[in-house]
């Protein structure tokens, strides 16, 4: 394995819906944040493994007790299963970059793990406990901060990281962000999924679909404003596969996320010292899976227009922006600091 002096630096973005890992040996991977345990002996025999992670877990969900460990951006306090799920997910991610978590063979692993800002605030200690032994040394950071660091947007920037469970806001002012520089909303991807499911159910009461199907439809066709093509999906009605036009439902569900995000963006901006507000208005960056809704950046930019104009852009690589940022932090932190952060 290609490592420097027997040390592997890793950045991990532990998301509600997807988690990604970037390592200093050049490996980069993304997995769905699902962990599942076979529900009974029969399932275990069929699946031939005690635990499944990622897409494999999602695809075999009828046979599994399925967990999304950071649902709503938090580890459920006191839930041993959720803590175990976080550990399993991390072990899986680390194994993907070529490290055997059981036997590291003298290799030192230094990891920076980005988590939803709310989890960092509420579950900081329990997160550290859950992650003990996963790596030799460990730093936990908030996801929007990791993104900001990775793209070197450290001064006069606002990062809006819209994931599945939460939308995290972080204003960077050239220093480590305090709680006042950050906000979290629970109006994010999952919320759009719920709205979309509700709207489709209202229009097609007999259609049969699951939230997982709705999530896939959204990931494929979400948009704001005018659609380029009608959004037509297939779902059974009375057992017969039927095409459903959900263009309006998709637009309405996606639009529902705009007011809370715009409100929080403007509120955070208004708290910045007046002389820096314009700079930050012109440096708003969207990251996270749910920021990929077509037209969202333009919509938010129009809202900033009412405040004197601004610029909202998408981060170049939304899937890996968080884990790449974590890797940058891991590589920039001096070795002397890493010694103090051993798990």
């Amino acid at each position, binding site marked *: 394995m290609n490592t420097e002096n027997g040390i592997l630096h890793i950045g991990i973005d532990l998301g509600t819906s997807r988690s990604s890992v970037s390592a200093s040996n050049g490996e980069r991977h993304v997995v769905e944040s699902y962990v599942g345990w076979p529900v009974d002996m029969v399932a275990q025999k069929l699946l031939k493994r005690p635990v499944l992670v990622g897409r494999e877990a999602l695809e075999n969900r009828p046979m599994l007790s399925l967990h999304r460990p950071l649902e*709503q951006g938090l580890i459920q*306090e*006191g839930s041993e299963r959720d803590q175990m799920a976080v550990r399993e997910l991390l072990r899986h991610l680390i194994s993907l970059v070529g490290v055997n978590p059981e036997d590291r063979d003298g290799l030192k692993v230094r990891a920076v793990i980005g988590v939803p800002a*709310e989890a960092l*605030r*509420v*579950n*900081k*200690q*329990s997160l*550290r*406990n859950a992650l003990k032994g996963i790596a030799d040394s*460990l*730093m*936990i*950071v908030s996801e929007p901060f990791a993104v900001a*660091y990775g793209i*070197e947007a*450290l*001064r006069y920037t606002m990062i809006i990281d819209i994931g599945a469970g939460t939308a995290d806001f972080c204003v960077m002012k*050239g*220093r*480590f962000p305090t*709680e006042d520089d950050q*906000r*979290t*909303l*629970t*109006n994010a991807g999952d919320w759009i999924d*719920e709205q979309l499911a509700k709207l489709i159910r209202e229009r097609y009461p007999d259609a049969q679909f699951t939230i997982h199907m709705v999530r896939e439809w959204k990931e494929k066709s979400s948009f704001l404003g005018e659609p380029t093509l009608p959004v037509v999906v297939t779902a059974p009605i009375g057992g017969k596969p039927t095409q459903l036009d959900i263009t309006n439902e998709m637009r309405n569900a996606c639009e529902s996320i705009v*007011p*809370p995000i*715009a*409100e*929080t963006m403007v*509120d955070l901006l208004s708290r910045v010292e007046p002389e820096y507000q314009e700079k930050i208005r012109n440096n708003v960056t969207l990251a996270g899976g749910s920021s990929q809704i077509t037209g969202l950046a333009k919509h938010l930019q129009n809202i900033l227009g009412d405040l004197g104009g601004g610029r909202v852009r998408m981060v170049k690589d939304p899937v890996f922006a968080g884990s790449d940022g974590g890797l940058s*932090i891991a590589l*920039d*932190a*001096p070795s002397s*600091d890493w010694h*103090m*952060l051993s798990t």
Partner: protein
Amino acid sequence: MVDRFRFLWETGRRDLGRVKSRIIRELVKENIDTIQGRTPRVPPHPLLRISSRALLWVSVSLTLVAASYSLSTITEARREMASPTLSSPVAVKAQPPSLGETASANPESSLPAPQPIDRAVLPLGVQKIVLDPGHGGADSGTIAPGGIVEKEITLDIGHRLRRLLEKAAFDVAMTRKTDKAVSLKDRVGFANAVRGDLFVSIHINWIKTRKTRGVETYYLGPTDDPYLTQLTAMENKESGYSLTDYRGLLEAIYMDVRNNESRRLASAVQTSLFRSLRTINPKVKNRGVKKAPFIVLVGTRMPAILAEVSCLSNKREARLLARPDYRQRIAEALFGAIHSYADSLTRTHQKGA
């Protein structure tokens, strides 16, 4: 010209490098603080900057006092082991905060990971608490101009409060855990069916005078205040009760024996909310403990209150409600009040025993 650009570029990179180093230093410090179970460091108040010699004397004296205290405690403990009693629960429950001091305390950062406590060992009058996040589903409650919706805020605060209560070993039941419509009748039925010891309904106020902000807490009773009559009618909308049911319920209002307990709980909640929120919302008004015949207070069979924890009609409070730390503060204030009320019952029982 090229040299000038190179100079500017190199200066920019050097500055960025300095910013990165500073940020990494602060990040590492924050992580080390978490490992060591400390809250993030803040510069000490000038009055607290005492000389190292004075500090040494203080610590020596404290060590001596602590040593003598430990010796007496050990002796006491041995005596207690010889003749076991049920007095220990008071010590077990020393951890949660009391009224008004819930705001910035973060037990996670200063204590080891919390372990669930078996509530059966605690002889408390309050074990199960029913939380009722107001509105839900098609009934959004009030909506602020920025799109903040009452039903979402009440649910979020409800979950935060649930986590705090569960950590302190209370049993918690919620009338709704997701964004779904539950009629007031079903909420009442649920609270009675799960045999809750307390019922806490969480709402956000909407007041016509937009400048008004504040908190108010209700318990069951009649009202002739036109504002309260209007508010009650609004919150009692879509109750699911028929007129006959409603009349029967109203008849029970004035002979309700649990009302005194409801009033005490309402008073604890109101004090805690006001004390806690005014630290970050200095203009918050203490709108007091009030009586009103809200359906959820009428039909429930346990001490019950309805807290209007802020005003969505006020722009400033609506903005604050969008902040998770403000919602957490509200949840902590409610938790402090419930805990304090439960403790007061325990003390009463112990005195009476």
